[in-house]
Every structure is written in structure tokens, then in C-alpha cells.
């Protein structure tokens, strides 16, 4: 995993799953549990679960092009980010196809059609989203959702 800008608050949860879509539910459960424990409200928990699910599904579909015998690493960690604000960071790492991060964009939602919604969902839900191409191949996606400040309504 590449250098994290935020400070990790304790031992992260590291999952290594096979790229079989049957494993999506397992990761959703883990993310949901961790988000609830961290104190996110129900709406934010739902969003974090959805964004993580989309990220991993994208690796399965695009990074590994449907292969079910590859490995996806998912790291879940509590962090203290900007100005000490607490949050949850999810890092998804694969060794599949590399793409230019600048090309990973959500599509125009006015063009209603199946497909292409995953990146939009990720960028809409999460406070920080960073795609990188590690030097040893594959892609890494780092996503952070911060707990609301006191007095700030959660999204």
C-alpha cells in the first residue's frame, strides 16, 4: 500500500478476497460493522457500504475483467485526517489492468442508461477519493469518509 496522508488510529482491518462476486456481501458486512462502530449515522453507513461495494465490483468487472481467481486487498482503518477530524478510510488494491486515473470519471447522469454509475456513486458519497497506479502494477483506490463536525449535519 502507498503512503497514507492521514494518521491511522489503530490496527487496520485487512481483507484479502478472491475476485468472485460472491465475496461482495462479506465485505459489505465488515464495512457496515466498522462504520457503525465508528459512529456514522444510518445514512452515512449506507453510503459508505455502497461506495465500497461499487469500488470492489469495479475491480472485478474492469480491473480483472470478470476473472474470479484473482486477489483484491481491502484495508479498512480508522483515521485522523485533516485538522484531526476522525473518519474511515477504505483502500482497495488490485493487480489488474492499469488505467490513467484522470480517465476515471463519473458519467453525465442526464444520459440515463445502464452502466457507468459506480464512479459517480463513489465520488458522491466519499469525502476523499484517490486513484493511483502503483509501480508494481494494478490500481489502488483510497477513499475517506469523515464523521461530521459537531453542529454540522451529516450528508
Amino acid at each position, binding site marked *: 500500500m502507498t503512503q497514507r496522508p492521514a494518521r491511522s488510529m489503530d490496527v487496520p482491518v485487512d481483507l484479502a478476497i478472491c475476485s468472485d*462476486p*460472491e465475496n*461482495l*456481501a462479506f465485505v*459489505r458486512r465488515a464495512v457496515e460493522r466498522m462504520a457503525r462502530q465508528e459512529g456514522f449515522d*444510518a*445514512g452515512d453507513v*449506507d*453510503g459508505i*457500504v*455502497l461506495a465500497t*461495494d*461499487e469500488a470492489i*465490483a469495479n475491480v*472485478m*468487472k474492469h480491473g480483472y475483467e470478470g476473472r474470479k481467481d484473482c486477489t483484491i486487498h481491502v484495508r479498512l482503518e480508522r483515521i485522523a485526517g485533516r485538522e484531526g477530524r476522525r473518519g474511515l478510510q477504505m483502500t482497495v488494491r488490485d493487480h489488474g489492468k492499469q488505467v490513467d486515473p484522470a480517465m476515471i470519471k463519473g458519467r453525465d*447522469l442526464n444520459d*440515463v*442508461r*445502464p*452502466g457507468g*454509475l*459506480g464512479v*459517480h*456513486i463513489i465520488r*458522491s*458519497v466519499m469525502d476523499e477519493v484517490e486513484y493511483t497506479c502503483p509501480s508494481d502494477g494494478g490500481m489502488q483506490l483510497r477513499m475517506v469518509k469523515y464523521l461530521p463536525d459537531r453542529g454540522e449535519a451529516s450528508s
Partner: protein
Amino acid sequence: MAKAADPIVKDIQERAEGTVVVLVGEIDYNHSHKLLESLNTVIERRPARLVIDLAAVEHMDSSGLGTLVRIFQQVNGYKGKMALAAMNNRVRNAFEITRLDQFFAIRPTVEEALQV
């Protein structure tokens, strides 16, 4: 890990007002192709009104949303009507983030959806 039975389509009800398809479980990338196959079979009969009952659906991601868009486009193609009913907050959230809540007719109950 043992594979459990995980039907996505719990029931298909032919009512006077239209066809109601009752879905269950978590509709994600793992299940959306099965959902598409099942719904394609339903719309082969060209129901004039199709309602998707989502009360028992706990999670839906973009692949599930995309499947419903595909079905809608086909139903619309033969001038049928389609509505979604009884989604929970998590599923509703996915529709709102993608603005598909403005695209589909969404109602709190199946009975209201059958009036669309």
C-alpha cells in the same frame, strides 16, 4: 463457504391492475444478471403495467439500478408502464445519488404503484 439458495425473485403476482414482481435480498454485481434474466422472462408477456416490489430488498448497487433501467427501457418500448414500490432508505439512497429517483415512478406501496 457453502453456497446458500439466494433467489432474487421471490414471487410474481398477476393482478387485475398489473404484474407485480417481488424481489428479495441483496441485488449487487453478483446477482444482477440473474435479475435481468428473470425480468426479461416476465416482460416477454408484455405486461401493460409492471411493478417491482422492493420491500424485501436490503441492498442495491449500480448493477441492480442498471438492470432496472434496462427493463424500463424495454417496457417503455412497448408503451407499458413500470413503477417501483416500497424501497428502504438504503436502496432509496442509491436511487437519489444517481438521480434515478427522478427517472422512475417510485411509490411507498405496491397498491399505489399499481395506480401509476
